[in-house]
């Protein structure tokens, strides 16, 4: 019988997976941001729990950093962004969600198989969750590929970062503090730059559909 803590950790990992699939099949941008916030909160809970079990104070800082950045700051920035771009009620025409989810399941199987040998080598309590974290990374990646609009792609990118962070926590009890701070800053700055990009794209093409970027010259 595995101890209760690691069971809760596994539950949080399963929650990450559910949220990743929910994001994959979500059409509304506003709901997508809410899901992203929830995913951030899940990562915070998981990190804090690992910190509590392993008694590593740095992980508490890392959890606090994630909380501020991914639960409050970035969702707030995203909300402001979509308000100023006036796309908060936008619907995206996704191609065939069941097919998308089937491909997602294949990705999950691949990720689980890939992670199995790594997880056997790892000694951390949350090694089982590594496969799920890897699956979440791949799913966010697929979300970025399948979206036609720019804002969901940005959210997909951020979700991928969340999943990577979760993978780091579950496999090796988090990265060194300096690396984590660097990544946090990167994500924030990346977010801001992408925001500027979005405005530029919009000004050039009157739309956030990135298919316009594929044309090399004016017709």
């Amino acid at each position, binding site marked *: 019988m595995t101890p209760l803590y690691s069971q809760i950790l*596994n539950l949080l990992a399963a929650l990450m997976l559910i949220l990743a699939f929910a994001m994959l099949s979500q059409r509304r941008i506003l709901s997508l941001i809410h899901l992203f916030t929830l995913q951030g909160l899940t990562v915070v809970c998981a990190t804090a729990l690992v910190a509590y079990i392993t008694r590593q104070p740095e992980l508490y800082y890392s959890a606090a950093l994630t909380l501020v950045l991914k639960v409050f700051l970035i969702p707030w920035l995203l909300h402001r962004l979509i308000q100023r771009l006036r796309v908060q009620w936008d619907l995206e025409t996704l191609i065939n969600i069941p097919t998308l*989810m089937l491909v997602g399941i294949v990705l999950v199987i691949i990720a689980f198989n890939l992670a199995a040998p790594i997880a056997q080598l790892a000694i951390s309590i949350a090694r089982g969750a590594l496969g799920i974290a890897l699956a979440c990374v791949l799913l966010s990646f697929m979300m970025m590929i399948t979206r036609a609009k720019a804002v969901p792609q940005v959210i997909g990118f951020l979700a991928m970062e969340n999943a990577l962070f979760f993978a780091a926590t579950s496999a090796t009890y988090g990265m060194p503090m300096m690396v984590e701070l660097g990544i946090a800053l990167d994500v924030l700055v990346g977010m801001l730059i992408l925001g500027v990009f979005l405005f530029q794209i919009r000004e050039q093409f009157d739309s956030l559909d990135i298919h316009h970027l594929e044309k090399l010259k004016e017709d």
Partner: protein
Amino acid sequence: MNYFGLLAQSFAVLLALLLAPLLKGWVDLWRAWLQNRSAPSLLQPYRVLHKLFWKESVVADAASPLFRLAPYAVFGCMLLACAIVPTLSTDLPFAPVADAIALAGLFALARVFMSLAAMDIGTAFGSLGARREMLLGFLAEPALLMVLFNASLITGSTSLATIVETLGHQQFAIHPSLAVAGVAFTLVWLAENARIPVDNPATHLELTMIHEALLLEYSGRHLALMEWAASLKMFAYACIGVALFFPWGVAQAQSPAGMLPALPVLLFKLALGGVALALIETFSAKMRLFRVPEFLATAFLLAVIGLLVHALLGS
């Protein structure tokens, strides 16, 4: 065959018969409250049943015997389904005979009877509803089976009584795969019981209806049986949900005294489930019919993910 098992079984069936309309009334009550309407009485479903049972039953000229038979068959299927699902005690004589797969089969049998009866008269609404019902059914059944298999994988048995016994009375454990399966089950529950994202239970004569379209030609005691069967189905589904995801508090086999405290626990869990259902219905909008396959495919795939998660984390 022991007497206690028989007693527990008949008590469970009686309880299902009595409580099923109450659960429907409870959900309607909360729906009305949440939508700022003045609520119907909690006992309204009983009154409706009473009224319908005393009314004359009118049958169309073109009706075949199947049309008359269908309400009894559907009612019998749902009653049997309620008898298999352990509510108060796991010592049910019926349980070893019919497992979770047979349960899905019972629901399917009732669905076939309902659809055939709806097409029997030959009205446009009836065949439209029947076709929609079959569309829903062929998508919802595999999802339900996958959810049940999630629990079977953990407990190593497809018998619901054994599942509850293993999940409820062993050492407390959190199963991540059951969390995923729980989401899938909620989606199936909504679709199978004609609830709001899929079908609107409060509508008559609308082009979007599914469940009501099937019952359009029924009246009097036939309609009463159909309505009662629908609430029994909802009760059975709620009890499956309780049995799979919140199995604590169900009496052990061979302990008559355990059934007494099990009753308030069950009532409490069902009351909470009813409120949750009303909340979901209030927060969501009716889907277009062509979105429903997507909705149910999501449920099926989530249940499959549950199986995968169990394969990864379970051992």
